[in-house]
């Protein structure tokens, strides 16, 4: 399990809403995002998290709005969503080291 999953998949980040939003606002935001994703709007394809931008899909939008319907779960998600987000692209953790690894060892693979 990725230890960053809890923050990365936080429903407030997925929906792009603040923690003070009402249930109605959250539902409306989810519907808007689903329709935008259906028509392929570029701006809706990603969302900001503390670890950079992540890909937004209809599945995680639905899961996010479902999670926030339960007040017991919502209060925990609100707490996590209080951390600042970053709009940078996510940090590459595989390709750059792999290329450098191959170069340092004189390999033409990996």
């Amino acid at each position, binding site marked *: 399990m990725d230890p960053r999953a809890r923050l990365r998949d936080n429903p407030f980040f997925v929906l792009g809403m603040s923690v003070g939003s009402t249930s109605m606002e959250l539902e409306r935001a989810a519907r808007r995002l689903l329709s935008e994703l259906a028509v392929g709007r570029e701006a809706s394809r990603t969302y900001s998290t*503390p670890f950079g931008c992540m890909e937004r899909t209809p599945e995680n939008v639905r899961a996010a709005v479902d999670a926030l319907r339960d*007040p017991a779960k919502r209060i925990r998600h609100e707490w996590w969503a209080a951390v600042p987000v970053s709009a940078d692209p996510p940090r590459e953790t595989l390709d750059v080291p792999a290329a450098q690894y191959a170069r340092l060892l004189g390999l033409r693979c990996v």
Partner: protein
Amino acid sequence: MVSPVALVWVAIALGRLFMGSSKLRSNVTIRLPQRRFVGLFAAAILTLLFWSDNSALVFGLLVVSGVVGLSHELAAAVLIPLGLPRLTWVLYRLGGGNGPPAERRASADLAAARALVRRPSEAAARFIERDLATCVELGTSGAAAMALVSLSRGDCNQAHAIFRLIDTMGDHAPPVAARIAREHLMVDAFVREDWRRVEEYEKRAKGSRLATLLASVARRKTHAYRAPSTAVLWMAWLIAPRRRATYALVVDALKARHVSPPVPVAASLEAYVKLLASWPIGARREDLAAAVQSLDALRASPAVAAGIEKRGLALGLTADGKEVCDAILCDAEEDLAQSVLEAGWPATWAPRGITGDAIRARVEQERVSRAEGLVAELERRSRHRVDLSENDEWRAWADARSAIDELLCDNVPPATAFSIVFAQLTAYAVRLTNVRARRILAGDVFRVLQDLAHQGRASHTYELVDRNVTAVKADGLPREKELHGEPIGDLSRVASLRDVVLPRALGAVVGVGVIAMVWLLAAEKFFLAGACAWMTFAAMFLFAVTGHFVQCAWSVEGLVVQSRRLRFIAQFADIAAIGAGPGALVRVRLYRAPRWLPRVVFTLARSRAEAEAHAARVPIAGGC
């Protein structure tokens, strides 16, 4: 005139052949000088001879001797950098390979694999795999070769797991395999900015110029104690290999840059987020400590619990704010424990405190159950006779060993670790040794158990673990007086002739024959020399044939083959064919056999009909 030196060279070659054919019956392991040293010796003498006599024959022999003598150096300097695996393999085999006798054959595959990763090709990868499949045991060199083949296919995890195991074998691994493993692991740690491991590997990789450079760059980047000066860093770069690739690293390290200090401890999630944002590359022990202590501060803050309770009331919840806060912090602990587990950090990096202790407990519990699970799986497979391919077997043991090492890093008492793994690993390694003939792999298992027993002061097992470590160093299983299973051949009626009279007589004929032949050729008595050569050849042929006679018996594990000295269990999949005749003779051809056993062996059944019955019931599974 034929040069007497050339004849000496021929005599040496014949001598080697003769010694090779005697391997089955000799009780003494004859250690001949390695082929390339003989080549160098011959080349030195031939150079002197060529100096005085410009003969084309001498020159030709000089070239051949030189290629044999410098085969490994030629391969390392020319063929491996050019990425020519097959030629590298040929040259290494010509030079006889390097390392301990059990590893020499696979050392050629390791050299070929080193060339393969320079210029990957699926055909060459399959060539190496096919050749390794004919070895009865991969050994450390073979495992390293398979790791490089995996790397050439882009499977870094498999390669690094094997390299980690080879690295932990220390002096028991051949130097070439150990150096390759260490360099790969060190470069991997370097590119992942795992400076702690870079330092560790540098201490072990003594004399590696690349390791020295990378460790110097790491110390400079982290502003560590004893960071090298600019001049020393450039000097390390100058003597290191691949200067074009490492130039940017040195320039980067020399730039004035300060390591960011850890986020100060406060009742907030800032340190926690910073740790996970830089995880696993670049995250440090101080970052983990700051994150853990920040969670402690959050737990102790009454304002946080009050804020949660207030917000809960606004959402229509009646839960206690403290309870919700604890549940949230429990989630955070779980994430931090997971990050420690995944990054392979010691649990002791989490500082003492409510959160730190909880993380330590979670990590230790997880690691104990992982080690138990992996070791139990090894034991289950050995109990149910479910064997993996040797490459996968190395990987399975590498995972189990890594889990055991992590346990010991977490301050789990060695006695506890020993009690968890002793019985199961012993059963596993015994099967590896006795049935699968994987003595190098089993040797590592037994050595781990020996170390654990001594660290955990399990004195009642000292004798057993020491005996296992010693037993696995032998070339094969000891000979049994009575073979268990259904016997095929009965050699008792020819035993004395076969074991005592014939070898000595034939040995004498061959020895005298070779010397006489050299002498007669030097004296230009070609007819007599030819007659002597034929006689010697006939004697050697007979010697080799009689050397192939063994005792055999069917068992549930396969065919038990017993020579005069040692015993080997050929798996059913390793039997290529069994033939009958002439007479009661049974011919067994194996796909793989240990060094001391020819791949084609003979035994004598009681009658022709019995021999045919054995040949007809071969349960061959299709070979390797």
